């Protein structure tokens, strides 16, 4: 087979070092686990880039609960997320989703920051983070700012990151007693991309659906929220009928395409199925009954 070509690898030991490289080098590309990027260098003709390996920068790795927020470093692997009790308790949907990403080998290597910046419309970690209200910390050598995670995505495989910027971290509120769930359909069970995925977040007040958030993946050029549906069900008394109504309404929000993994029609139908499953499970996890 062909050797890898078209890049050089730099391994800055500090964050400042990495940001300096990002702002001074032409065609600088951050790399974490490399599970998405490295295979692309088998194709000759890709333009030469400097890969800036973030793997040595300790402050970019790990999960912290602090001042009512969960902070996740971008080089945190999917396996670290699965092993985290903090994530299991406060963001069960993200815990669910991380277990479906890749294989054991990929989860041990691939990172949440990489999954986001790769910007696949089917990325499994995105819908859970969206419903948990995640924000992304974007930094260059000059300045840093937080944006709602949804704004990170510009299109399939495209983010709003400028050439000198990196994703520095993620944060979302740590709220006890909430429920969330991630559901997906793939062409088989293990080690496959999602044909459709969905995440739901609920807050419960007795049998009232105090807060509801719904996110869908692989049904539009980027992962999306369903704010119209959320508004319709928020504050209502929870019931099977309400779940059916919300699930059916999500079909209208989806604008999928036909591709090798599935047809647009199938994706629309499955959107309702997955939202229904996720609402049930999230409500159950929030301690609710039906």
């Amino acid at each position, binding site marked *: 087979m062909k050797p*890898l070509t078209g890049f050089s690898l730099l*391994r800055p030991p500090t964050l400042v070092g990495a940001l300096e490289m990002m702002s001074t080098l032409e065609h600088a590309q951050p790399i974490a686990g*490399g599970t998405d990027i*490295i295979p692309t*260098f088998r194709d000759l003709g890709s333009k030469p880039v400097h890969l800036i390996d973030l793997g040595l920068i300790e402050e970019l790795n790990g999960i912290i609960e602090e001042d009512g927020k969960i902070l996740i470093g971008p080089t945190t692997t999917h396996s670290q997320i699965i092993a985290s009790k903090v994530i299991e308790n406060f963001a069960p949907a993200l815990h669910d989703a991380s277990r479906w990403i890749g*294989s054991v*080998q990929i989860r041990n*290597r691939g990172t949440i920051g990489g999954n986001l910046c790769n910007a696949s419309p089917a990325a499994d970690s995105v819908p859970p983070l969206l419903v948990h209200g995640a924000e992304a910390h974007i930094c260059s050598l000059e300045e840093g700012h937080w944006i709602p995670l949804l704004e990170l995505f510009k299109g399939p495989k495209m983010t709003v990151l400028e050439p000198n910027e990196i994703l520095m971290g993620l944060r979302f509120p740590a709220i006890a007693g909430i429920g969330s769930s991630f559901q997906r359909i793939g062409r088989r069970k293990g080690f496959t991309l999602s044909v459709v995925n969905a995440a739901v977040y609920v807050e419960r007040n007795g049998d009232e659906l105090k807060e509801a958030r719904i996110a869908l993946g692989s049904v539009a050029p980027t992962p999306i929220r369903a704010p119209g549906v959320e508004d319709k069900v928020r504050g209502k008394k929870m019931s099977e009928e309400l779940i059916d109504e919300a699930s059916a309404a999500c079909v209208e929000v989806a604008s999928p395409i036909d591709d090798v993994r599935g047809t647009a029609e199938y994706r629309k139908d499955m959107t309702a199925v997955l939202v229904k499953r996720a609402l049930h499970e999230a409500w159950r996890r929030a301690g609710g009954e039906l």
Partner: protein
Amino acid sequence: MVNFDLNGAHISFEVPTTMTLLDMLRIELGVTSVKKGCEQGECGACTVLIDGYPMTSCIILAPQVEGRHVYTIDGLADDPLMKELREAFMENGAVQCGFCTPGMLLSAYALLRDNKRPSEEEVKTAIEGNICRCTGYVTIIESILDAAERIAPD
């Protein structure tokens, strides 16, 4: 220059930054138990343990193992758990062409090290990143469950 431990021995090696860990192991260091299959991180034939965890060496660059501990089946030849796995694979006929076997053994090893009595589902999850194209999955799964029973009888 990359400095790392391979099967318990320290290695210092001059390597181009575009070389994969897989190519360094096979071509430069002669460790041919690590197989080259898809080169996309999907088939698992090139699985190695890095600091104890299975990863696919075809999509890791050689300089990225600086300071890490890399194990292949060669370094675990006398390990009691690996011995049980190897024997279970042989007794159950879990090896046909053998190409997937080193990677399967390493994935199974990491599973049983951390989970002495896995369920069949957990075994399947542990080897979901290792493709066998002789399709001997049934005997492979049985072998791993057998080895688990031998190392931790009820």
